[in-house]
């Protein structure tokens, strides 16, 4: 092998060799700046998330560090009277209101959504894909103020007449939210159910199980983490929804009493009062603290979703 040239012979370079060594400056610059721009765009996402967290936290924490409200009082007292003498900053009614209305929405929407998901994957896939899926997608697209508006003009008067109450109520809020999160639950649950291997179904059917027994014992069992994910996603959407809820729940700052009584939520409290309070006042700061609670809740939802996702992968 002694005839082989070792390494690069720079003295005897032909046209071809020269060509390989030429770099087009303009192309190289464009190549690098393109990558840099794309990287900046992606970095911007991180910056936005960090600054949202930072700004809302710094505003929201001033209730405790500047205005001297105790954290415990803020979370556990049920008296909300920021303009009173002495003022009281208990946001428990808002917190409970948010949780109750979210739980109610999930209680209504989860069975319906998962039922619809089973219908479109297991019972009538053809009809499900052609009709139900587009319907669900359209429901996602309807703006939340429209849901709120329909709740206000249809649902609230209906409840008022049926039960001889005000109409603005936890029930109205729960129903409106249930409708809003139904599409989320349905489509995510449908994906989870569709991902269950066909072999499992065949095995169960071959053992003589009916279609429903198969769905109930086999399909739903292995799609369970996915269905839970669907419900949690829906709940996180319900918890953060502002205007639709605010329009129908009555906005009375007291602890939730019954299904038919008006309540407040974190979002409705912020929506109604943020524009009417002066920046920097303890009242205004307390609203930012409520916003911080919302932010914290959406982080908690993400953690739950991550845990469920891991469980799904582990299976």
């Amino acid at each position, binding site marked *: 092998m002694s005839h082989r040239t070792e390494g690069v012979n720079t003295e005897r370079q032909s046209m071809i060799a020269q060509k390989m060594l030429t770099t087009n400056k303009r192309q190289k610059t464009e190549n690098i700046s393109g990558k840099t721009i794309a990287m900046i*765009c992606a970095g911007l996402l*991180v910056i936005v998330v960090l600054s949202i967290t930072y700004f809302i936290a710094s505003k929201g924490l001033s209730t405790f560090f500047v205005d001297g409200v105790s954290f415990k009082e803020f979370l556990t007292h049920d008296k909300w009277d920021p303009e009173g003498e002495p003022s009281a900053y208990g946001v428990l009614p808002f917190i409970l209101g948010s949780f109750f209305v979210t739980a109610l929405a999930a209680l209504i929407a989860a069975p319906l959504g998962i039922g619809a998901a089973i219908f479109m994957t297991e019972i009538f896939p053809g009809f499900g894909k052609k009709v*139900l899926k587009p319907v669900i997608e*359209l429901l996602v697209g*309807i703006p939340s103020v*429209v849901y709120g508006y329909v709740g206000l*003009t249809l649902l609230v008067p209906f409840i008022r007449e049926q039960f001889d109450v005000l109409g603005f109520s936890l029930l109205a809020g729960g129903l409106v939210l249930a409708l809003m999160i139904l599409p989320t639950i349905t489509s995510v649950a449908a994906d989870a159910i569709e991902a269950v291997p066909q072999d499992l179904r065949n095995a169960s059917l071959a053992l003589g*199980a009916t*279609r429903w027994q198969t769905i109930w014992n086999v399909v739903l069992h292995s799609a369970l983490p996915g269905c839970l994910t669907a419900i949690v996603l829906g709940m996180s959407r319900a918890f953060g929804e502002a205007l639709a809820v605010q329009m129908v729940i009555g906005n009375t700052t007291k602890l939730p009493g019954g299904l038919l009584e008006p309540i407040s939520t974190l979002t409705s409290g912020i929506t109604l009062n943020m524009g009417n309070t002066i920046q920097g006042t303890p009242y205004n700061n307390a609203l930012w603290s409520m*916003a911080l609670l919302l932010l914290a809740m959406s982080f908690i939802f993400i953690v739950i979703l991550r845990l469920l996702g891991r469980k799904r992968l582990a299976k």
Partner: protein
Amino acid sequence: MKARLMDRAATVVLTLIAVLIIGTLVGLLGFILSQGWHKLNLDFLTSPPDIVNAGGGIGPQLFNSLYLLVLTMLIALPLGIGAGIYMAEYAPDNKITQFIRMSIEVLSSLPSIVVGLFGLLVFVNMTGWGYTLFGGALALTVFNLPLLVRVTEDALRNVPRSQKEASLALGITKWRTIVSVILPAALPGIITGAILASGRVFGEAAALLFTAGMSSPNLDFTDFSMNSTTSPLNPFRPAETLAVHIWKVNSEGLTPDARDVADGAAAVLIIAVLLFNLSARWFGNWVYKKMTSGSN
């Protein structure tokens, strides 16, 4: 026998649920459109609202919604596509990438009111702009960025790898390969996603209450100077959109026909959203047909 009966019952119940959902949508659309139908005339769509008397229209609000949509997309699309390109083509498999992914996840699950409040702090107060269309567009950008990034990333990843190989093998740089070969092939997916995002922008209200504001100056539709405070095109003026208008009319409307106005506005909003949705669907199908009928 019991099992067979259960099976039957379950099928019936599930079918009822499906019917209920379809019925709800039909009822919802039917209700809104039938309530608002009589308001859908040119006068209502073009004349300004009246604060005290009946007979006001939604002209400025409709214009604001459309203008805000354009502004938002002008900002959000380049950023979303840029970040999508990074995630699909450049992002190495490491902790930083995981952190970016997590940020996208967080951003997409933030309540829109929280995004609006962030906008209030940064785009309204810190910048000293006050309530502006531009601030609203930035808040909506934050709100829609995760969707656009994900749509772009998916669309780029769905382009066959062989396209990229073909281009690179011709000595085309990676960036130009992405821009001139992969991106055009991914465009149908990106456009469909962008149309759906547009529907979201058009219907969003909570993020706008404290960024674009709840009022519009008296607009002079003959003045297009960008700088004048009454010019409709001036991005640094407050602007109430259609969705915000529906909310405001219902919570603090004074006019005797507030209900009527809200009916009409809701109908317009729904029609717009339906148009966005149907055009996205139609466009997707059209491109699919065009792409597949060409090859044999």
